[in-house]
């Protein structure tokens, strides 16, 4: 499985996984699992459209994932975020369906765009993927502190001059770029799995933020390497292994947390109604 033609795949996967781990750390922290799923899924519609008029699918992916991110961000300011995400997503998928209706010669390409393709990586893609990946990681590190602050105590962040809306849109754009570059290997439908499984597991194993981010990179790498090896050996689609391993990692994390008994009953997340015990109100 380390033959010449597979080396590209290993290389891309080794670039993709850290990006997924780093970006995914904040996806999980901010509860943005839905946007992380919706952005690449909607972007797939753009890739289909791009292929329709002959442009590179990567460009179509990038443009549509950015469009999706902005759509979710802008709509999300006038409606609940999950509603905004759902509607932005279906609008993009509907566009994708419209594009696809124009042609009939699509099946194998749709499949690999959606579910990933172990052999589908050419060496010309390596450099742009690496470049985009580096840019994504740099962006996340640049936004690290404001993201941590606004994700944990948003009101304090506002008081310190960090507008939640701006941070949200910046972050969604980073997610868009990350998904655009990772779709070719892992597929539009499963890249989000790489962005939520490993970080969800990592945070169960440590309470230190930087360590949790590093750990999610490690778990993402292991996930993707095992998935490639398994896909190569059994000929089953790589997406299947990514999805399964994501669930396994998450389960391991939950199991570990439960076994360590770190959950205290009555954690402050449940707010009690603030009714004073006596009538002494003043």
């Amino acid at each position, binding site marked *: 499985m380390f033959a010449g033609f597979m080396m590209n795949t290993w290389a891309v996967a080794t670039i993709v996984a850290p990006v997924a781990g780093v970006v995914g750390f904040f996806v*999980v922290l901010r*509860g943005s*699992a*839905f946007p992380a*799923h919706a952005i690449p899924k909607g972007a797939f519609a753009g890739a289909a459209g791009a292929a329709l008029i002959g442009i590179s699918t990567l460009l179509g992916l990038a443009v549509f994932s950015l469009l999706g991110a902005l759509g979710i961000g802008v709509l*999300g*300011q*006038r*409606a*609940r*975020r*999950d*509603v905004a*995400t*759902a*509607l932005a*997503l*279906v*609008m993009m*998928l*509907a566009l994708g*369906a*419209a594009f*696809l*209706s*124009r042609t009939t010669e*699509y*099946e194998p390409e*749709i*499949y690999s765009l*959606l*579910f*990933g393709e172990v052999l589908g990586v050419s060496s010309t893609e390596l450099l742009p993927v690496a470049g985009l990946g580096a840019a994504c990681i740099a962006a996340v590190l640049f936004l690290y502190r404001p993201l941590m602050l*606004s994700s944990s105590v*948003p*009101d304090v962040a*506002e008081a310190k001059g960090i507008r939640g809306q701006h941070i949200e849109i910046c972050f969604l754009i980073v997610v868009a770029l990350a998904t655009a570059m990772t779709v070719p290997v892992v*597929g539009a*439908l*499963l890249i*989000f*799995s790489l962005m*939520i*499984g490993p970080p*969800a597991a990592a945070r169960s194993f440590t309470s230190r933020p930087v360590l949790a981010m590093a750990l999610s990179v490690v778990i993402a790498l292991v996930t993707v390497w095992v998935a490639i090896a398994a896909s190569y050996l059994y000929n*089953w*689609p790589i*997406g*299947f*292994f*990514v*999805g*399964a391993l*994501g*669930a396994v990692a*998450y389960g391991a994390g939950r199991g570990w947390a439960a076994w360590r008994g770190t959950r205290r009953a009555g954690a402050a*997340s*449940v*707010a*009690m109604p603030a009714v004073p015990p006596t009538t002494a109100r003043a």
Partner: protein
Amino acid sequence: MHQLYTWVFEPGFFASAPVRTAVVIGGVAAVVSAVVGVFTVLRGQSFAGHALGDVSAAGGSGALLIGVTPLPGFIGLGIIGSGAMELIGIRRVRGRDLATGIVLGAAIGLTALFLYLDTSASATTGATQQILFGSIFTITSSLTIIIAFSVLAVGAIAVIWRPLLLATVSPDIAAARGVPVRLVGLAYMLALAVAVALSSLTVGAILSTALLIGPAATALHLTRRMGRALILACVTGVAATWAGILLAYDSYDWGSSHQGLPVSFFIVAVIFAAFLLTGLPARRAAARPRPASAPAAAPEEACSRAS
């Protein structure tokens, strides 16, 4: 006058059998989705509502693999998936969406596997497309079964709607009043699974989500009273569906290529437009500043004015 009529309703529209099927199926899907959708939007579970479409699709492709009609696969895996999401999900919204995402990832992986394993040539060609986008014009499952399950889903919601609403808005107060919050949540998820499985199968994955969330969100822009919201959502959903079908039919005569555009595209476009338009005045009313951590919509108001 006659010209205007034929311009709107292209010849053959009312006579066409696929159109009539679509109108009925689409209407039923719209109503079921709207009813379940209002609660979905209030509970902030749009992700689960969407994800269950993909989860059911995994069941559908599994069913195709073993040569059965998709319906039992859709419903079966949908119920398993929603049960899993509810049981492993934690009550906080972020934990819940994460569990949804994990189940979804696993289900998509399964879909990838099933579609790959499906060796029958005629099935794979377009199987991906059918599973993902669906087609409102070609329904193969028995209409009776579909309607029966739809009634089941809506009926379940009708039975539990009051405790469900209370548990949605204020789980602590609901628990204090003896409402089995966890159980009610699970019952809701199962009804959601059935509704989404049905709509995914009949009108496709895109419309399943669009009809679930769009009309409900549009209705909640306009009113906070439950009864009115439910009715408005149904009306909006059905109107958008029928308008979309009409536009799709007419679109075959547009342009030079005479290809037309898919029904799903038009229905979604109408729903999206309705959502945006009704959201405009709501935006002005929401101009009061609130702390950054407050959600954009306040479900508490819906409860305090429950009709």
